[in-house]
Every structure is written in structure tokens, then in C-alpha cells.
């Protein structure tokens, strides 16, 4: 490794330290070897400017992207969570947008959190929002495209779900809670009761984010279609999983498809 790379690795490692660098005698000694310092700041103090900024910048970015999660946790637990996350999960993407990509999984492991399940739901919701917010655009499914699919081809037709659609099962009404937390000034927002739901999160062609609560059956079918399962096998798999709802699936599939296309969840049909 070159001398330049060695200094850079040394510096990059130190900047993620959780404690102030000038307090550490070893760091002070190393810093004085690599950094010049001046009559106003010691080498370690100069390095400390960057370390402080690492934490301020990344914490601010996470607060901006996860207002619901930080609102649930409160200052003390949020700081502990972020310190742990940034300490354990180093940022690897060139974009700050991706900083929270592993936060939902990290929150899952943090069972010390007071409202743990709620926090997990909120972290998942907020990361999904980030994902669909700037996902690829897709054109609306045209009626002519649907009409061009031969009747006999529908059984094995594959639906293409829009890139800006995400599916999320939650145990708490986190969408509503997030909105309240973002709007609340100093008034406390009560923790809601459990209220499991299957959500479809979607960015429309107007670029606004939408959420729609769907039934467990509809959610399961959409997920299979999203995974590339052809229409009939997907319906059969869902019917097997929800045997009491077989008639519902048969009766609703046409109407559902129409709705999914209208809502721009389904943007193409590929007939084999």
C-alpha cells in the first residue's frame, strides 16, 4: 500500500470514531506525525473538525429521511440508535440517499427499543418511501396494449409492476403516525394501538407518494406478480394459501387488474 493510501485509511478510520479525537493520546501522537497543525489548532483538533462533521452530517441526513422513526424513539434512543448504526454499518454508497438502506434491518436487531415492533414498521415504511420516491419512471399501461393480448395468452401473461411500487405489511398504522409526528410541534403524539395492514406504496405520475390498504389476498397476488409469476399460476398459488377466498379471487381478478392498471401499479403485460 502506498504512503498516500495509508494516510487516507488512517484518517478515514478515525473520522468514524464516536469520541473526540484530541482526548486520545495515541491519536494525538499519530496526528502530529501526519498533520501539520497551526498556532490556533493542534493536529488532532484539526482532524476533529472532520470527525464532528461526519457525525453531524450523517445524523442530519438520517433525521431528514426517517422523521417518523426519530419521532417515535425520542432524542436519547434515537441518538443511541444512530450512533450504533453508523458505528456498525459504514456508509458505502456515494449517495447520502442510500445512507438508511440497512437501517430497517438494524432496527430489527435493536430489541432494546421501547416500542420495538412499531419502530421496525416505521423504519421499513420510511425506507420504502425513499426507494419509490426516485425510482425509475414508467409509462401508464395503454388500453391498446391490453387489448393486444390474445384471450388465450392471459393465463400465462406476466404483469410488470411499476418500479415505483412497494409492498409493505405493517402491524401498526405507521403512515398516519408518521404524518402526525411530522406535523406535531411540541405536543406529544400518542403511540397507536396495533392495527395490522397490507399496504401498497406507490409514486404516481404526478410524483406524489400514495399508500393504499389492500386485502391480504390482493397483497399476496400482487407480490407474486411482482416476482414475475404468470397470472394463472399466481392466482392458483394464492388460492391455495387462502382456500376460503377462492371465489373472491375468481370474482375480483378482472376488477383488480383494471384498478391496478388505473392506479399505475401494473405498467405492462407480457404475453408468452
Amino acid at each position, binding site marked *: 500500500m*502506498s*504512503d*498516500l*493510501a495509508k*494516510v*487516507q*485509511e488512517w*484518517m*478515514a478510520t478515525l*473520522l*468514524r470514531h464516536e469520541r473526540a479525537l484530541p482526548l486520545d493520546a495515541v491519536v494525538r501522537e499519530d496526528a502530529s*506525525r*501526519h*498533520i*501539520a497543525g497551526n498556532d*490556533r*489548532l493542534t*493536529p488532532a483538533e*484539526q*482532524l476533529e*473538525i*472532520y470527525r464532528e*462533521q*461526519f457525525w*453531524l*452530517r*450523517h445524523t*442530519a*441526513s438520517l433525521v*431528514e429521511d426517517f422523521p417518523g422513526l426519530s419521532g417515535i424513539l425520542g432524542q436519547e434512543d434515537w441518538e443511541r440508535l444512530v450512533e450504533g448504526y453508523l458505528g456498525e454499518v*459504514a*456508509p*458505502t*454508497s*456515494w*449517495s*447520502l*440517499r442510500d445512507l438508511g438502506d440497512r437501517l430497517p434491518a438494524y432496527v430489527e436487531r435493536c430489541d432494546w427499543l421501547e416500542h420495538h415492533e412499531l419502530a421496525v414498521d416505521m423504519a421499513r415504511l420510511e425506507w420504502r418511501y*425513499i426507494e419509490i*420516491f*426516485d*425510482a425509475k*419512471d414508467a409509462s401508464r399501461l395503454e388500453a391498446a396494449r391490453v387489448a393486444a393480448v390474445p384471450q388465450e395468452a392471459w393465463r400465462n401473461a406476466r404483469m410488470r409492476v411499476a*418500479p*415505483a411500487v412497494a409492498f409493505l405489511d405493517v402491524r401498526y398504522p405507521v*403512515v398516519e403516525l408518521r*404524518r402526525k409526528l411530522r406535523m406535531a410541534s411540541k405536543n406529544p403524539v400518542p403511540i397507536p394501538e396495533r392495527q395490522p395492514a397490507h399496504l401498497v*406504496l406507490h*409514486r404516481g405520475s404526478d*410524483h*406524489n*407518494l*400514495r*399508500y*393504499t*390498504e*389492500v386485502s391480504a389476498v390482493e397483497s399476496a397476488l400482487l407480490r407474486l406478480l411482482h416476482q414475475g409469476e404468470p397470472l394463472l399460476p399466481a392466482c392458483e398459488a394464492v388460492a391455495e394459501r387462502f382456500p376460503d377466498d377462492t371465489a373472491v379471487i375468481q370474482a375480483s381478478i378482472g*376488477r383488480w387488474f383494471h*384498478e391496478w392498471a388505473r*392506479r399505475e401499479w401494473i405498467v405492462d403485460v407480457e404475453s408468452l
Partner: protein
Amino acid sequence: MGEEYSPAMHAPRLGQPDLGVGIGLRVPHYPAIFRRRPKVDFFEVISENFMVGGGKPRHHLDRVLENYPVVLHGVSMGIGGPSPPSREYLNELRDLVRYTKAAWVTDHLCFSGARGVHLHDLLPLPFAEEAVRVVVERARAVQDHLEVPFALENTSSYLTFTASTMAEWDFVSEIVERADIGILFDVNNVYVNAYNHGFDPFEFVRAIPHERIVQVHVAGHTNLGKYIVDTHRGPVIEPVWDLYRETIELAGPVSTIVEWDDEIPPLDVVLAEAERARGIRDDALGVRESSVRGIPEERRVPLLARETLPDDDRPWIQGGPRDAAFDEISTRSE
């Protein structure tokens, strides 16, 4: 054997157009920009904010592109780091260049992390031959890859390395000459570094190859007494305008951007700052024409005599806030 052809020998700004005076495109200004379509010569956009699939960021970019030229300014390339910029990053950047038809692309003379960790900061490099060699090789490759002229910005810094063997201006000059790339000359960064590291900022301004300056940045900063932080907060201070004036006198008409990234004021305030830049630029070009150059010594403000502020505990993030996911709309499944 004759000297190799270099555009720098023949044309100012490496032959790039003078786009006039513009401002950095920032999210809080979108409503005013789209409603009023203000008179701005061009916008500088933060590349990474638009290297996404679609949605609002690209929609907003499209609306800007309908009415204004843009140039791209990156904050994440980390060209001097232990590893070269990733191919994936460069491919996405090239896609954005083609999409925006940007005349040139800029990033910073810095590193941003190591061992796969990205610190999202503009970390300084030692001013030494090894760093020159590393950056020169990569800058050439980046310029070839992007298929448009590439320029590096002199970066603000809060430390210098014991391994440095040359002045910052020599470091910058050596790199841009050997890589045959442009300079995005940030005169505020010159001021910040002159204060933080104790040198004459005018020496920096005079020493760099002026024909390689394709763009200039002016911005505010935050003086904490012991050091200045390049926050891009607040108006440009007089000594920085002096450096800008001197730069234009030496380099001629160069595309200029006003950056304002923190405590972002209403658009009109930033536009007024751009008009200030335009006025100074026009004056400096007039002086340049008359060949009477230089800022009188008595007009210069001593570097260490600036107002000091209390400790700053806010992050500085180049480019201001990102477009972000906020309000969601409920719809009912039918």
C-alpha cells in the same frame, strides 16, 4: 519534436463557453424558479442529486432544462482516494451528462473515504507528487469516460499534511496541466484556506494557470475565529469579492456560480448576489480591457481581522437539502 497540441495554449477556458453568471440550483427555490422563470444565465446542479431513476428530482431537472443551460457539479467522486472512482458511478454520471447536455462536469480535488467506506466529505490531499500522480491519471480517465471537459475544484480544508511538499496553488496547477483538464476556481475556498493555513490568497489567485479556469465559485462561509468553515452560508464577504475581481481580471470572462447551501434565503436574495457578481465581473472585465489591474493594497481586509462567531454544531452539506419524500396521499382499495 514540437509541443503536443493543447487547447489551453490557444483559448481561454480551454475553449469552453462563457455562460455568464448563474446560481446553484437548490430545492427550496424550485417553486419560485418554476413560477417566475427568473433571469439567470445558467444553473449548476449537484450531479448526485439527479443520478436517480426518476420521480420528482428528474421531473424538476427537466423543468429547469426546458429554460436554462446547466453544468454538473459533483461532490462524491473522491478522485484522490485509495481507489479510483467506481465505474458504476462514472457510467451514471455520463448518462446524466448526455441527458442534460452539460458543457462540462466538475468535482473536487479531494478524497472521500477508504476501504469502501464513503464519508461524504471533501477530505484534503497532501500536496505532494504521489497525490499529483494519482489524480492526474484518474482525471484523464474520467474526462475520457465522460466525453466532455472535466474540471477539478480547489477544495477548502481545515488541515494540512506534514507530507506536503508544495504550495496548494502549485499542487492544483501541476494536476490540471499534466491531466489537461480545467479548474473550477472557488475563490471562497482560496480565502478559507488562506485564513486556515496562513498564506496570501492573492498569491494563489495569481499563480494558477488562468486559461484553464472554466468556471468560478463564490460563496459565503462561517468564521469560527480559530478557523473558517466553508458552509456556503450567508452572503459573500468583501475580501472574497476582491479575490473574484482579481480572478476575472486575470482570467477574463469566466462562467460564475453563486453557491448558497445553508440557511438558504429566498431566491431573490441569491439572485441579488448573482447580480453583485455580474457587476464586479463587468467592472473587472473593463479593467482588464484597460490593462490597469490589481486591487489597491489599502482595500484589502486582513485575513485574521474577521468577525468571529460561536461554535458551530451544524453539518455543512454541499448542494443543500435533497428532494425528499414527504407528504403521502391515502387512496382506498376498491
